[in-house]
């Protein structure tokens, strides 16, 4: 999850900066510690978002509860409701933050692979698309809970969460089209990328549900070929 660094102020007993790597968010020391309140809050929020993904991987959308998220985050129920109105608001925040990270990762990789001078030809476009897809799958394989969160179909009754998933499909589709689009070529079929991304996410969901990240890694060459064949 997002990295958070706490730099110790003068009120800290230890003058050295306190660094917190939020990959597995730690609990801050309880009681009076002089860490500024807004940093404590930001850290609690990160822990809750991380816990939401973990709880979802554990329990699925059918059984997940705010109580389990709270427990995994190591905060009180009161703290949970200070941050989020309900379970769905917490899951939505987790979804949106991870979806943004995934897209930024892909964008960064695709942008990095076009810096060479000269005209962009078909082969360059395909290489860029390959790099982007590999980056996306690498990101998901490194964090299976996040892979599960982003790929699973949420309950349609939770409209905001369903919309967030649709937005992600749309955004990934736009990225794929943007990378592959030939400005002089025919306009590709509208909606085809959405189908391809939908199919790709279904495969990620089924493999992420196994809980074995290696299975996600294995997907990379095949999925790259499948995503590129019909475009």
């Amino acid at each position: 999850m997002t990295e958070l660094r706490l730099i110790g102020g003068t009120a800290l007993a230890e003058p050295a900066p306190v660094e917190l790597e939020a990959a597995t968010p730690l609990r801050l020391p309880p009681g009076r510690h002089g860490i500024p309140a807004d940093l404590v809050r930001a850290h609690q929020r990160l822990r809750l978002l991380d816990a939401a993904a973990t709880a979802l991987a554990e329990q699925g959308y059918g059984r997940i509860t705010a109580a389990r998220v709270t427990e995994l985050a190591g905060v009180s129920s009161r703290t949970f409701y200070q941050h989020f109105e309900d379970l769905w608001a917490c899951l939505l925040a987790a979804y949106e933050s991870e979806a943004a990270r995934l897209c930024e990762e892909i964008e960064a990789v695709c942008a990095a692979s076009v810096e060479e001078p000269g005209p962009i030809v078909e082969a360059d476009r395909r290489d860029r698309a390959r790099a982007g897809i590999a980056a996306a799958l690498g990101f998901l394989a490194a964090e299976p809970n996040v892979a599960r969160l982003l790929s699973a179909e949420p309950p349609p009754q939770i409209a905001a969460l369903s919309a967030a998933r649709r937005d992600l499909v749309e955004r990934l589709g736009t990225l794929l089209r943007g990378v592959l689009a030939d400005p002089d070529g025919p306009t590709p079929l509208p909606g085809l990328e959405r189908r391809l991304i939908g199919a790709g996410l279904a495969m990620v969901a089924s493999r992420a549900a196994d809980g074995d990240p290696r299975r996600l890694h294995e997907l990379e060459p095949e999925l790259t070929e499948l995503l590129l064949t019909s475009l």
Partner: protein
Amino acid sequence: MEGVLAACGELGFREASVRAILERSGGHRAQFYQHFESKEDCFAQAYAVWIERLSVSLLEAAATVQGWEAGVREAIVRLFQFVTARPAIARALFVEVQIAGEPALARHDAVIERLAAAIDSARAEIEPAEAPPEATGTFVVGGVESCVCEALSAGDPDRLWDALPELMHFAAGSYYGKEEAEGAFERASIVLARERERLTGAEEGAEG
């Protein structure tokens, strides 16, 4: 058995109580717990029966015509007919199953594999050097499924029909590449126009 799917399709798996299920299927709470351990168990059993029926029906539809492309198209048409005729049941089978968790999901994966194996018969017509990835069948079935889920989640199953040409482009393209995909798109557009005529004809017939 249909009661649990109707209740979950209408209210959502999380919100559907045993009481809501019994309101739709009849019977008493005590009887319910004689037959099923829990709501999950009841859903999984009903799911197994209905998904079996649906997948057999899709495979039969595919077998009524000659050739891979026509077979896939007929199966998708049959699927769309089912979804638009029984949207609540379809919501349970396609969307709520993702929420219901194991053991319904295990059955779901088995059905996907079976349909994927059927679609993979396309491979017989392709030169080994040109063979698509092993996972192509699963990929294509997943694409069709995600399209159905999208329409059902958006509460607009009728919109599904518009996706027929696009889905055929996607399915044929995944196996045979771009050129075949464009042909499949054109042919599916013709079938779509025919289906639309049939649908409006049936509506007018019902009114008149």
